């Protein structure tokens, strides 16, 4: 009796490894399986996953609702675009600079904003997006206003005599996949660290967290800056992928999309954000061919979220994962 049980358990536990392997193979071969349009959608999903990861640290782990991600996304896109167009700096320099710029700007914005109470804080972060767009539109000598920046070069890598340019959709997919994987790993490291535990403590009960010596205000500021770095990096990749940046990069629509990814996928879980990015961005991008349907589908998703998946897909993913893992 116990022998067969053990055997069954072993057989069931094995399922997680093959599934993981299948997912990995799909991720690595996706551009060969799907059409170019699907690959494009996946790239956009991978790019949006970055600000969503950052937002998840803020909303899901620290309990701070923010709509500022699009502002930092835009700052990252413009930083990368301006550097590339004006100084011809290479891709990786632009990505790092965009992350740092967004993180640095988050500091003076975060200091006053984080003093506000939760609802005022949300309104304030919404203001950042609107101000960002106004600056991008009106500071014409630098941003070229509504014309935006164009002919941002595709990523170019030079290593000694070796050099290559990532120009095709397929190449860009692998670049975005690598960056997305690194970002996911980074979030995992932050969440697993003792600081991640302190963030959760702040989310659960700020006063109690204070009373056990956690400097909550400083943590919130640091997480706000980290979330901006993720958004800035995402924006820079967006700029290099589309090769154009316009004031429309600063859009409320982007902030809400990022929020839907986090809440829909499952705030406070990493797999939820990965899944959420693929689902929501993939869906809206894929439905772009029929714009009317697209907004309706988007709305239906929102309704489904509110009525059936209050905690996003994370509980479903967990249940599925545990089920195939043979866990009770």
């Amino acid at each position, binding site marked *: 009796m116990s022998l067969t049980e053990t055997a069954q358990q072993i057989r069931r536990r094995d399922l997680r490894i093959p599934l993981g392997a299948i997912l990995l193979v799909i991720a690595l071969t996706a551009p060969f399986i799907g059409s170019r349009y699907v690959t494009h959608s996946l790239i956009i999903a991978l790019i949006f996953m970055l600000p969503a990861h950052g937002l998840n640290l803020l909303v899901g782990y620290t309990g701070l609702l923010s709509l500022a991600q699009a502002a930092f996304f835009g700052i990252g896109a413009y930083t990368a675009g301006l550097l590339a167009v004006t100084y011809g700096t290479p891709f990786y320099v632009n990505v790092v600079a965009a992350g740092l710029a967004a993180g640095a700007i988050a500091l003076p914005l975060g200091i006053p904003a984080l003093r506000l109470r939760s609802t005022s804080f949300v309104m304030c972060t919404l203001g950042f997006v609107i101000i960002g767009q106004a600056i991008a539109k009106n500071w014409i000598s630098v941003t070229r206003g509504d014309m935006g920046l164009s002919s941002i070069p595709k990523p170019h890598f030079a290593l000694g005599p070796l050099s290559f340019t990532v120009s095709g959709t397929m190449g860009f997919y692998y670049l975005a996949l690598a960056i997305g994987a690194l970002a996911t790993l980074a979030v995992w*490291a*932050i969440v*697993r*660290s*003792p*600081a991640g*535990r*302190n963030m*959760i*403590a702040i989310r*659960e*009960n700020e*006063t*109690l*967290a*204070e*009373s*056990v*010596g*956690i*400097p*909550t205000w*400083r*943590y919130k500021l*640091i997480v706000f800056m980290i979330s901006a770095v993720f958004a800035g990096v995402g924006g820079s990749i967006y700029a290099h992928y589309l090769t154009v940046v316009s004031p429309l990069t600063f859009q409320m629509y982007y902030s809400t999309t990022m929020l839907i990814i986090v809440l829909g996928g499952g705030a406070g879980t990493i797999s939820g954000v990965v899944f959420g990015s693929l689902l929501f961005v993939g869906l809206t991008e894929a439905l772009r061919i029929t714009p009317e349907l697209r907004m309706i589908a988007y709305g239906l998703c929102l309704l489904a979220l509110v009525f059936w998946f209050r905690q996003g897909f994370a509980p479903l993913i967990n249940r599925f994962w545990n089920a195939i893992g043979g866990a009770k």
Partner: protein
Amino acid sequence: MTGLPILEIKNLRKSYGAVKAVNDVSIHINRGEIAGMIGPNGSGKSTFFDCSTGLAKPDTGTVKLDGQDITGWSLNRIAREGRMLRSFQKTVVFKSLDVEENLIIAGQMFTFPSLWSTFGLGRMSRQRVSGLRERARELIKMAGLWDVRHQPAGNLSGGQQKLIQFASMLMPDPKLILLDEPMAGINPKIIERVVETILYANKSLGVSFLVIEHNIDVVTSICQRVIVLDQGQKLVEGLPQDIIQDQRVREAYLGG
């Protein structure tokens, strides 16, 4: 040094609008002492705690902890640097986290040398956390929470949550613990357990206490000295047996 009080509060005042919640109270707690604080509801006991521990800012007055002026320090700094910890009248725990995680969190800021070091995942960091986990397990055993250590704290009874809160305060080596009605609303078995733990922490770990408590039996059995507040002012202080005989104290409770 032993003659110096661990906590010395002078002329503390705090008003909420027209209400003088704490009106010029001065007290001290001796090193190694368990002091009690009693007084009718609304007499300003919790407000006095809030102002002493940095949760609220006193209007005037000074707070000296172990000879150091800590007036105006934030709640987290007083906890971390002063090692003066407090509980809340309305029990709070990190609800969705299990008992063990609750205690680990309570010890982290005392184990990691800086805020930045808490972002580490290296060997040093892992060692620190496993040290905390060991200590957490000892305290969990002592508090009688071993069987529920992996359950979310929010699922446990009010009494068990009080024990979590109390055990959490023992995670660092505290100098002084302020308890706000630790026995309120819990069953006699757990009251006994809390009393035992207070006495253990006091005798073996050398922790001083200031305890707000309505249960007069508990107060007389564990406190060496009792301070009575009434309408924001200190009415009287003295030995527990003298306090319960005191006419003014009886009037304060009866008069409301």
